[in-house]
């Protein structure tokens, strides 16, 4: 598995791949619909799978003494790692943002801990749709990417809009660390959902790839 993960970072991703993190800079503008900024990670996934096709990744993997199941799991873990890195960078930028602007975000939900809990739910939704669908027909990327991104965005935008609009949920919309308990609760819930759905998605992807024929 270590060798497979090394392959992911050495061959699949190039230094140019770091450009995928640039859109996170949107977190530093005064007001915006910030779930969209966090969703740019899906562009990173898109670049990875499109490069797969160009680079004949499946054919390369077929030559390695690793089962297809291990290969699918390694790719799933790579995507999870990418999402978590995106999340951590986003959280760091939201701390910068807290000190940069004295007022909250009127365009959508504030980028607090609850926001990142919802971001994890958005990523979990994407993984649940994308990973099994991609490995049921590798190289057919439109439905897994398009469907996964669209539904994940609907979930992310829907939940953050509810928090921003409903007065009953206003305690989750603090611009900083106020009402930390409820915020932490949402973040922890998001983390549990992310772990659970990503685990389910990875196992289903591993089952699906066993039906693949080159």
């Amino acid at each position, binding site marked *: 598995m270590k060798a497979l993960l*090394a392959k992911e970072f*050495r*061959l699949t991703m190039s230094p140019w791949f770091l450009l995928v993190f640039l859109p996170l800079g949107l977190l530093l503008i005064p007001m915006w619909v910030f779930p969209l900024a966090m969703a740019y990670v899906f562009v990173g996934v898109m670049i990875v799978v499109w490069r797969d096709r160009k680079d*004949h990744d499946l*054919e390369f993997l*077929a030559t*390695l*003494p690793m089962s297809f199941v291990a290969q699918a799991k390694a790719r799933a873990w790579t995507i999870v790692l990418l999402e978590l890195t995106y999340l951590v960078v986003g959280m760091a930028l939201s701390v910068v943002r807290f000190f940069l602007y004295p007022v909250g975000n009127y365009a959508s939900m504030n980028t607090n801990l609850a926001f990142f809990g919802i971001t994890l739910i958005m990523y979990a939704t994407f993984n649940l749709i994308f990973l099994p669908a991609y490995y049921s027909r590798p190289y057919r990327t439109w439905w897994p990417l398009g469907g996964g991104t669209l539904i994940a965005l609907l979930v992310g935008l829907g939940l953050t809009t509810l928090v921003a609009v409903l007065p009953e949920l206003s305690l989750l919309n603090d611009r900083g660390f106020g009402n930390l308990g409820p915020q932490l609760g949402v973040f922890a819930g998001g983390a549990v959902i992310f772990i659970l759905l990503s685990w389910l998605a990875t196992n289903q992807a591993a089952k699906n790839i066993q039906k693949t024929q080159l």
Partner: protein
Amino acid sequence: MNILEVVNLSKRYEGFRLGEINLTLPQGYLMGVVGSRGAGKTTFLKALLNLVRPDTGVVRIFEQETREQSVQGLPPTIGEKVGFTLGGVAPYASRRLSQITATTQGFYPKWDEGVYQSWMARFGLDEKAKLHQLSPADQVKYVLATSLARHCGLIVLDDPTRGLEKDESTAMLDLFRELISAEKCSLVFTTSQIMDVETCADYVAYLRRGELIAYTSVDEFSRSFLLVKGRLRFLTDELESALHGIRVTEKGFTGMIKTKDEAFTTGCQIKEPRLEQIMVFLERPESRPRRAHEEAE
């Protein structure tokens, strides 16, 4: 010991059926799989390597079955001793050889860097080059260098002489012979040029439209067919159904027949064909004679 054993292997696609195929390859020998485009050579290799799911049959490599339940690809215990390329595809062609090698060697605990470097030097390959910058011959040599560094017992190459000039092709085939004697490995390659197998192979497997026409030693292969020529009155039904590549003119007919069917050739001229003639007769479209009753219709 048989490095490779194929028993009743078949695979059906819409409009195409491979097999059933039965063959064995002893350790230290070289097998050429010959056939024209669409004969099923790549499908056969994929079935060998468990990359497509056969409908029937068993493949054993190093006396171990390649199918483990429904898992695709070779089981790791076999896969680490088999080096292969498929369908002229060069994965990660835009990467430098050094990057690909550094990634690849992580999967093989027994990777022998000394062997790898010596073959790279012998082949004159620069690790800083990108894979797509290499000529087709050098791309094959790179696969050979990485396979030899892993001490592969079996190397499988899909059409390694495709796109090569005649002299390059001959040099490549000579290299195959050298490898199997020096490294004590076995090698299977596909080709659409029957002369390639005459140059270097011990065994030839001839595929035509998915059917294994013959699997034998190269010497026996040319002896297992006969060129037949005769007047139309000697073209019996048995002979006609046994003939390959039959051509009929007003004066008579020509075709090729398996030696075992020689008894049908009474009254005809027969002679042993050259190797390239066998492929011509096996592959050319048949021009069947029109019988009297067909003419009446």
